[in-house]
């Protein structure tokens, strides 16, 4: 029982963590919370559905390559579409409000998320109904002796670790990654030493969009049924996780996601009638963190300047 719950929680944490990383990445560079992040991730799930079930691209690919490459190409394509969408989002609803009251990008990105959700609901074929996600990853067990770890679950965990590792390398070892860190730390100083801030922002949004694109595939594979309005709850959970871990800190985002996932799973498993209150448990955790440790688990406390 406990073993199965831990696996559940880890899986849930993986699906949250990539969205939370998206929130942290954008917040670091822009100092604004991009609230449509969750909806963009679900948009990516729908683009996978589009590529596999409607355009039959996957069927074409599977005739040419082995399944692994076909899945990889499909998911990459969906991720690229998502990254393009993220850049468009930046142009439309974030850039116009730079250097203005922070209330405006907050509202505009929430509105953009709802618009995206509704556009999927209206224009995707039968978009308002729950859609089954194509079962690209096998549900068979990897090891006969270990229940709960199917190929699907194993691949989701491995893919999450791989993406985080790649991001770690990108942020710490490449020049543009270091520029992203510089802009997050001090915008003016970064501009002063000759960093092209606009370029850094665009690269961040492309990288963030790609990560959200992959997360859409992982979310879809894990839930196996997706809905157009799933983005709302994923956005909230992702943002909550980022706050619990420390907004702006990539590793904090992972810690926060795991904390929230464990809270949800254990409340619904061990408290009688707790299933209904699992969602509340996550938010109560966030409220407690905001009130008593607003810098999060890994974040550093910043001193307010006038």
């Amino acid at each position, binding site marked *: 029982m406990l073993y199965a719950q831990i696996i559940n929680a880890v899986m849930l944490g993986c699906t949250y963590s990539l969205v939370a990383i998206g929130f942290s990445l954008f917040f670091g560079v822009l100092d604004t919370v991009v609230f449509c992040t969750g909806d963009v991730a679900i948009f990516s799930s729908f683009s996978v559905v589009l590529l596999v079930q409607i355009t039959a691209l996957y069927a074409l690919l599977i005739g040419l390559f082995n399944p692994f490459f076909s899945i990889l190409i499909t998911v990459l394509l969906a991720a690229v579409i998502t990254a393009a969408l993220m850049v468009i989002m930046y142009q439309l609803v974030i850039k116009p409000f730079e250097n203005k009251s922070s209330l405006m990008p907050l509202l505009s990105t929430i*509105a953009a998320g709802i618009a995206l959700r509704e556009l999927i609901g209206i224009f995707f074929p039968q978009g308002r109904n729950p859609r089954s996600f194509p079962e690209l990853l096998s549900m068979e067990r990897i090891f006969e002796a270990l229940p709960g770890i199917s190929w699907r679950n194993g691949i989701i965990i491995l893919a999450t670790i791989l993406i985080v590792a790649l991001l770690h390398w990108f942020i710490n070892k490449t020049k543009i990654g270091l520029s992203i860190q510089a802009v997050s730390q001090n915008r003016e100083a970064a501009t002063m030493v000759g960093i092209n801030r606009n370029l850094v922002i665009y690269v961040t949004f492309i990288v963030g969009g790609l990560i959200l694109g992959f997360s859409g595939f992982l979310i879809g594979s894990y839930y196996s049924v997706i809905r157009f309005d799933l983005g709302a709850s994923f956005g909230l959970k992702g943002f909550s996780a980022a706050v619990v871990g420390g907004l702006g800190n990539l590793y904090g985002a992972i810690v926060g996601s795991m904390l929230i996932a464990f809270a949800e799973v254990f409340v619904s498993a061990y408290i009688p009638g707790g299933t209904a209150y699992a969602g509340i448990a996550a938010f109560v955790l966030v409220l407690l963190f905001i009130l008593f440790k607003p810098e999060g688990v890994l974040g550093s406390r910043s001193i*307010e300047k006038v």
Partner: protein
Amino acid sequence: MTDRQTHLQNTGKFVAPLGVLIFFAAMALAITMNLWTTLAVVVVLTALLIFGEKRGFVETAYKMVEKNYKITVAVFVAALLLFPIALRGNSYFLHILVIAGIYAMVALGLNFQIGSMGQVNFAPAAMFGIGAYTSAMVSVHYGASPWLGMIAAVIVTAGMGVVFGFPALKTRGFYFSLVTIAVQTIFVLLVVNTDWLGGPNGIPGIPAFSLFGRSLKQTGNLFGMLLPYQINYIYLTFFLLILLIIVARRLYTSRFGLAWNAIEEDEIVAATQGINLTKLKLLSFSIGSVFAGIAGSIYAHYTSFIGTEDFDFNKSLILICMVLLGGMDNPVGVTLGAVLLTVIDEKLRVFADYRMLMYSVILIVVLVVRAQGLLPKRNRTYPGTEEG
């Protein structure tokens, strides 16, 4: 200068009341005609406003109203009283007016946080819901008079406003918004999962208000004209709405309003100037919640059925839309925004699928094109700072 003033005073005597009448005619057109007429009216109003602002007409209009305050208000009140009677033939139109009035109250309350203090509160619908549920529970479960329910709603929402205002003391900006989103979500989840509160089925059979032994759900009769029962609720709503607008306006011009604006500009500077952040923030939340609570109580006893879908996150967003569209920190503007959006929303019932898309697009367009809203706030004038 005095020439110009007397000129204003003379022409204003007729022009200001005429403007009020034209506005009511436009509203009647917008409510009774189809969607396209409504949209045309809104577009023409907006165009007039923007054009008038560029040429300075809007400022002149404000002056005219101020110079002829009494007659304009008299005409306005008379028109407001006669307006529902003119529309008595169709109870649906009257229903739109009641709903518009109720949402205007919630939007006015929300304005204390978004407009005055610059803190985006995503839980106005939860406060509205707490008011509605309190009032409904008191009268359904304990059989008390709906008026007692309203008083209970006011007390409970005032307390809740203080409770939810506490996070606002420690946080601001995104963190605060996340807190309010969490509160909104927790409210809906708690109500849906609590059988005592009706759960997912809502609370049916809420009794109506009664006044002088007469239920407000009775049809009236005035000089042989049959008046649908909605008219009773319209007058109740309008009466309370005007009361709340007066309260909001007085708060805006008081030192509290000024202090809230100072907090919006910069909290730390405001605190160093001797503004008590704790007191003022809690006041803003408490008063805003009471407004929502009163509106919720009327809503519950008007529709006689409430369920969580009336108080979800989407409703909160629509309320924020109303405040932004109308004009932040301007009670009259906020009321206008609430009325306009309610009317458009009712006309869009046929296109229910597109509703939320429409709201999100309106929100983005307003933010990009005209962030100050239709009727922006004006600079405060105090005796001695200006001529006259």
